[in-house]
């Protein structure tokens, strides 16, 4: 009951963050026990007082065979509350470790889909036990959200680079419709290596417990795209434009799912038409 209440609390907080414009992307809505288990697992490896002194280094990939997942703690592990000061300088944070595991797991998605199996395989390549996959949600949610977040970050970097180039005069400023087309295309192209399993990812993103996070990721991405497109609306257009772009992105994504043309040219043509429609609509609206 406590876990359910805590999870519900996390969900509510996450949903509340949605109301704020640029909320921090923190999609780790793991119930408290997982955090405790994860920290306990990590602490155990770096704890130099444990029975296996050979696992004294905090770099996980040095002694892959020595790390044995002993009995999982029931409830709060004593070391969770106070190991302060004993960790070495390069102690990797839990979040960083999780990122590394999930990134490694992406290679196994084409084979295993967005699932705990892929995460387990990813953990193996890092020299960890497959039990490390227990740190994450069993339905592959964390993997999908991690991937989407990573893609959005890459997109942001790309947009920043382009903006810098324009500022330095190395590149021409693109007209809005071309900018939107190119940006959405660049973002959707990141899905190509995983396109077979993307429908599964979409269905995972639509699971009720993932909706706050996936919505958050979607809205931040759309906001970023429009920001770099030079949108300076401060009236209701702010909402209209974001809604329209979200529609364009989502529909194009769906078209891409069942596009079998070479290099997805049908999808890009669809995208071009939708962006043109949107520009037409806004021009007409201005004239009225």
């Amino acid at each position: 009951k406590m876990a359910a209440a805590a999870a519900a609390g996390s969900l509510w907080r996450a949903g509340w963050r949605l109301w704020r414009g640029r909320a921090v992307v923190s999609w780790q809505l793991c119930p408290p026990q997982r955090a405790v288990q994860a920290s306990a697992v990590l602490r155990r490896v770096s704890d130099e007082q444990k029975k296996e002194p050979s696992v004294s280094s905090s770099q996980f990939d040095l002694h892959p065979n020595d790390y044995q997942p002993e009995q999982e703690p029931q409830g709060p592990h004593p070391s969770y509350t106070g190991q302060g000061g004993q960790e070495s300088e390069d102690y990797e944070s839990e979040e960083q470790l999780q990122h590394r595991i999930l990134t490694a797991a992406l290679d196994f998605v084409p084979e295993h889909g967005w699932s705990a199996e892929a995460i387990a395989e990813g953990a193996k390549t890092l020299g960890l036990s497959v039990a490390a996959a227990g740190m994450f949600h069993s339905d592959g949610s964390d993997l999908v959200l991690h991937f989407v977040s990573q893609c959005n970050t890459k997109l942001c970097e790309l947009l920043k680079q382009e903006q810098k180039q324009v500022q330095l005069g190395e590149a021409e400023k693109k007209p809005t419709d071309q900018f939107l087309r190119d940006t959405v295309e660049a973002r959707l192209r990141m899905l190509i290596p995983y396109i077979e399993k993307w429908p599964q990812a979409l269905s995972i993103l639509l699971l009720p417990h993932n909706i706050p996070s996936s919505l958050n990721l979607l809205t931040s991405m759309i906001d970023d795209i429009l920001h770099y497109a030079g949108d300076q609306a401060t009236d209701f257009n702010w909402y209209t434009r974001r809604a329209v772009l979200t529609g364009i992105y989502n529909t194009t994504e769906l078209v891409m799912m069942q596009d079998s043309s070479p290099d997805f040219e049908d999808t890009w043509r669809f995208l071009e038409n939708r962006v043109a429609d949107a520009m037409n609509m806004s021009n007409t609206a201005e004239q009225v």
Partner: protein
Amino acid sequence: KPVVDRIIRVDHAGEYGANRIYAGQMAVLGRSNVGPVIQQMWDQEKAHLKKFNELMVAYRVRPTVLLPFWNVAGFVLGAGSALLGKKGAMACTVAVEESISNHYNNQIRTLVEEDPEKYKELLQTIKQFRDDELEHHDIGLEHDAEAAPVYSVLKTAIQLGCKAAIFLSERI
């Protein structure tokens, strides 16, 4: 960040609403002898709104989704109070400006508590605007706002509305 977000969003909504209130008042009383006075106050509000538009883009803040509503509500309030006569319009001005000044003062307190150095520019802007609004408040009093029909009821009602508007615009 969330603090600044809210502040800019609600202030933007406030200046937008104030603009519409004066527009409503001008629509009714534009040709009367208080027309120029109202026009002058309106122009200052326009400048305020312009500033908040810029801040909104700079801080990448989302505008309140209630803007279309404030558009209509503001105009109706302005026109409605003006229909009660010149004193009615002035009473509305006094009520609104008093609310806004208190609101700005609260924000100034919040920002100073948080980090006066970091928010120096924003603080400067808000302080300046608060002084402008207080000036409007005094102008309203000078023009016999207190002699308006049902002044105290009007004032209370309008200030209640302002409180609600502030609460909602901060969040939605």
